[in-house]
């Protein structure tokens, strides 16, 4: 049923479930070059702290870019402005996170180098944020599912013993709290609105649900960065995410989708085809005019 909801073009673009779930994260030893143990299928990942920061930063860069696509196309003027505001905040968070990732990496890459001069397989964002905007309901539902996870993540990371991460988390939490309230109120309004808005909101939820498994499921990178002070109680956060999402879905008179097979891969650089198209637009100016300033 989910394949039908997703549409043939879309599901064919994705890697098969089996392939996605096979993705193995190989964590390198504390210092040293990236490596994969022999025989383990999976991409080469770098230093765990850099990887963790890229995941956080890329989520916000890609979602921020997606939202910026609404600029000038919002359904009403206020919403056009609101979505652009969210985009601006998220790109601001991405700037801080990618700058820090580049500094930790120590290869001389700044936030712009990381945003504009990496190819798709080097991006670590979750699959949810790269999904196309679709209709307004799909944009809002995507935003809501992400906002809940983001707020809970920052609420945990603001207590990080890494002062740089804690500072970004505390700041981002304040802004994301506004985002979450905005997307929550829209989900309720669309779900509990007209027959048309309800149908579209439910369709969006059903379409996007398969990407939520990747949001808060920890892997070896998450385990490795505990030593760096990036501590998230994933079980507790996942439980809170589920409670908050279920609460809003219920208030919106929508139905929480059943947990079917989840699509994964973004965290290790395996993306849906949509990321490539997004990057082609986002990176084109910087690559055509490297080093340009304006």
């Amino acid at each position: 049923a989910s394949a039908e909801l997703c549409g043939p073009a879309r599901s064919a673009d994705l890697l098969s479930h089996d392939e996605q779930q096979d993705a193995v994260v190989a964590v390198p030893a504390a210092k040293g070059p990236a490596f994969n143990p022999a025989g383990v299928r999976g991409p080469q990942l770098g230093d765990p702290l850099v990887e963790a920061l890229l995941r956080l930063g890329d989520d916000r860069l890609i979602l921020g870019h997606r939202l910026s696509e609404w600029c000038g196309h919002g359904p009403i003027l206020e919403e056009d402005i609101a979505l652009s505001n969210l985009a601006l905040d998220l790109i601001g968070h991405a700037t801080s996170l990618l700058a820090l990732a580049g500094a930790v990496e120590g290869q001389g890459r700044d936030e712009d180098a990381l945003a504009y001069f990496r190819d798709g397989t080097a991006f670590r964002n979750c699959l949810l944020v790269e999904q196309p905007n679709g209709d307004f309901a799909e944009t809002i539902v995507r935003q809501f599912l992400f906002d809940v996870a983001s707020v809970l993540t920052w609420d945990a990371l603001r207590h990080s013993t890494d002062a740089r991460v804690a500072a970004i988390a505390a700041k981002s939490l304040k802004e994301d709290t506004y985002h979450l309230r905005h997307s929550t109120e829209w989900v309720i309004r669309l779900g509990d609105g007209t027959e048309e808005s309800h149908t579209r909101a439910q369709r969006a939820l059903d379409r996007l649900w398969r990407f939520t498994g990747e949001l808060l499921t920890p892997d070896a990178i998450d385990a490795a960065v505990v030593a760096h002070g990036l501590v998230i109680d994933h079980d507790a956060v996942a439980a809170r995410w589920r409670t908050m999402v279920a609460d809003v879905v219920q208030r919106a008179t929508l139905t929480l989708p059943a947990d079917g097979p989840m699509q994964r891969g973004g965290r290790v650089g395996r993306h849906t085809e949509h990321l490539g198209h997004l990057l082609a637009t986002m990176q084109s100016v910087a690559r055509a005019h490297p080093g340009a300033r304006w």
Partner: protein
Amino acid sequence: MGEGAAAVWPLTHAQVMGVLETVKDPEIPVISVVELGIVRDVSVQPDGVQVTITPTYSGCPAMHEIEADVRAALVAAGAPSVSVAMVHAPAWTTDWIGPEAREKLRAYGIAPPTKAAPPGLITLTRARTPVPCPFCGSRETRLQSEFGSTACKAIHVCQSCRQPFDEFKPF
């Protein structure tokens, strides 16, 4: 921006603060960067001035302009070199905007921020107390959108005088 005074070096800490009082928020030109609460530290050293500022919102495009304005104002006042550092912690809050600056905002047509919520308090929906209209003082106002012309503002409409107005969001 030395207000006609000849550029002199060294500047005292108080003189540097005086210069910074003349640097306005480019989006809200009635309050200075000091009143906005984003100047976190000023250090006068033998060879120049170091100013530490904190961003209002993470993606606020005005921050680049503010940084350039701070630099230009201090150079004009005689500082041989100016470095502007950006810190994220503690995170900026509208609670750092003082009573005088709040009155300036109101007079400019922007409803000043109410007390910011403590960090970590996540409310999915909010019972909103109507924001008083900065033009007629009426509390018969309604929120139009929590996102406005800049990152820091929300849009309201006054039901009494029919005037739409900005609110400096509590943050």
